[in-house]
C-alpha cells in the first residue's frame, strides 16, 4: 500500500472576481513508503495547490487523499511541510523554532532540547541555537525550516519549492544536504519544483504536470544510482532524462502561453 494516495482529485475554485477556474483535473498518484517523488510542471499548473491539498490546507472539489490509508480532512503533524517563502517564527530563536511542533505536542523541555539538537546538527547548524532568524542567511533559514519539519517526525514530508528563492550555489548545497539526510532517514517525500535538474537529482520518480488545468502528463522513473551528488547532473543518463523532461515541459509551457 502506498504511504500517500492521491485518488482522482480535482480542484475548482471561483476567484472573487472572474470565472471558476479548474486548477487540477482528475489527478491520481501514489507515493510508496520511503520514496522520494517529485512533481514538476510549468508555472501556474497547480502543483503548489496539489501539495496544499495533501497538507490539508485546502479541500479538493472531488476525489480523496489518503495518508497511510486515512483520509486527509485537515492539516496535521503527520504531514510536515517546508515552504518556498521563509516561514520561521521571527520571535523565536533557532532552537525554539525547531521545538515549536514538539512543544505544542506537549513534549518536556528536556526531550525537546535533545531532538532539536539532533536535527540542528543534521542540517549543520550547531552553534546557531540561540540566534534569531533575522541573523541567518536564506539558506540557513531553509535548513532550520527543514529541521523543524523533521523534528516533528512526520509520516510524509511535503516540500514546496523549498530552494526556489536561493542562489544557485546555495541551492546545490541544499540539494546535497537534503539527499544526505534522506539517505539515512528514508522519509517519504513529495517535492514540488519547476527546476528539472533538481527533480532528476532528487527523485525516485518525477511526475510531469500539464499546464492548467493541471493533470499528470507522465510519470518518469529515475533509475540513477544512489547515493547521488551534484556531480550526477553531468552524466549522460542524467542529461538524457533532462532532455526528455524538458521536451515535455516545453510543450506544456507553450500551450499555457498559447
Amino acid at each position: 500500500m502506498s504511504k500517500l494516495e492521491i485518488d482522482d482529485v480535482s480542484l475548482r475554485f471561483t476567484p472573487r472576481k472572474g470565472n471558476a477556474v479548474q486548477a487540477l483535473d482528475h489527478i491520481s498518484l501514489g507515493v510508496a513508503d520511503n520514496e522520494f517523488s517529485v512533481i514538476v510542471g510549468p508555472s501556474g499548473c497547480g502543483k503548489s495547490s496539489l501539495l496544499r491539498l495533501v497538507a490539508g490546507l485546502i479541500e479538493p472539489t472531488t476525489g480523496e487523499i489518503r495518508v497511510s490509508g486515512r483520509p486527509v480532512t485537515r492539516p496535521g503533524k503527520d504531514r510536515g511541510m517546508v515552504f518556498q517563502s521563509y516561514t520561521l517564527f521571527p520571535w523565536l530563536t533557532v532552537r525554539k523554532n525547531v521545538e515549536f511542533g514538539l512543544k505544542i505536542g506537549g513534549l518536556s523541555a528536556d526531550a525537546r532540547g535533545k531532538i532539536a539538537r539532533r536535527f540542528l546538527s543534521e542540517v549543520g547548524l550547531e552553534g546557531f541555537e540561540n540566534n534569531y532568524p533575522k541573523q541567518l542567511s536564506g539558506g540557513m533559514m531553509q535548513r532550520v525550516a527543514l529541521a523543524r519539519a523533521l523534528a516533528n517526525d512526520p509520516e510524509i514530508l511535503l516540500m514546496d519549492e523549498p530552494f526556489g528563492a536561493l542562489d544557485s550555489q546555495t541551492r546545490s548545497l541544499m540539494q546535497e544536504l537534503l539527499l544526505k539526510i534522506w539517505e539515512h532517514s528514508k522519509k517519504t517525500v513529495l517535492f514540488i519544483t519547476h527546476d528539472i535538474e533538481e527533480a532528476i537529482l532528487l527523485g525516485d520518480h518525477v511526475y510531469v504536470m500539464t499546464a492548467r488545468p493541471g493533470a499528470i502528463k507522465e510519470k518518469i522513473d529515475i533509475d540513477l544510482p544512489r547515493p547521488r551528488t551534484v556531480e550526477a547532473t553531468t552524466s549522460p543518463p542524467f542529461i538524457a532524462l533532462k532532455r526528455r523532461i524538458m521536451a515535455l515541459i516545453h510543450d506544456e509551457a507553450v500551450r499555457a502561453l498559447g
Partner: protein
Amino acid sequence: MSRFDAYFAPKKEIPPRAYLTVSALVAIVVFGFWCLLSYGGLVRTDFLPTPTAVVQAAIDGLGDGSLLRDTAFSVGEIMSGFILASIFAVPLGILMGSFKIAEAALEPITNFVRYLPVSALIPLLILWIGIGWSEKVAVIFIGTFFQQLIIIADVSRNVSHDLLDVSYTLGASRRTVVTRVLIPATLPGVMDALRVTLGWAWTYLVVAELVAANKGLGYFILNSMRGLFTDRIFLGIAVIGLLGLLTDQLFKFLRDRLLPWTVVA
C-alpha cells in the same frame, strides 16, 4: 574628483563627522537667528521672546507650580485616553484583520468614523460631557481609537499566510495559531501603531484644551496668549515637544527590551 564630490551624490554615505557638523550648524543658525531677531530688537519682544525670557518663564512656572500642574494634568489626560483606546483597539484590530466576520462587522463603521475630524466633535462632546477631564479623555479616545483600529487591522492582515499554514502543518490548532503565532507576529506593528498614534493624541488634546479648558498645557498656552506672555507660549510649546520626544524614546526603549528579535542585526 574633489573630496566633497560624495556629498552631492544622491543616497551616498557621508562621514559621520560631516553629518554631525551639518546638523549642529543648522541648529546654531536657527538659534542664532532667533537671538539676532529678539536680542537685536528687530522684532518686538511681545511677539518674539528672547531665549532668556523663555528660560525665566520656565523657572517661574516651576517655582509657582503652574507648569508642573498643567503638564501633569495633560499627561494624565493623554495617558488615560490613549491607554483606554489601546486596550480596545489592539484586540479588536487584530480580530478585524484576521477574521473576515469581524472585518465585516467593524470596518465599514470604522472607515466612516475615522474620517470625521475629532476637532469637529469637540462642541458636541462639550455639550454632552462638559469641559473637564472626561471630555478630554473622550476626545483623545475617539481621535486615536479608530485610527489604531485601522492600522492594527492592516498589521494583522499582513501577517504571512504561510506562517499560519506552516503552524497548522506542525500540528497547531486554530487557537494555538492565534495565540502563539498570529498575536506575536503582530507585536512589532502594534508597537509602531501605538507610537504613531500617541503623537497624534497630543494634537487632539491641545486642540481640545485650546477650545475649552481650565487646566492643562493647551490652557497654559491659551491663557498666556491672553496676557501676551509670548515667553510662556514658547515654553508651553517646548514642553509639549520635549514630552513627545521623551515618549518616542520610551517606545524605542520598550521595543528594544520587549521585542529584541526585531532589532538584532
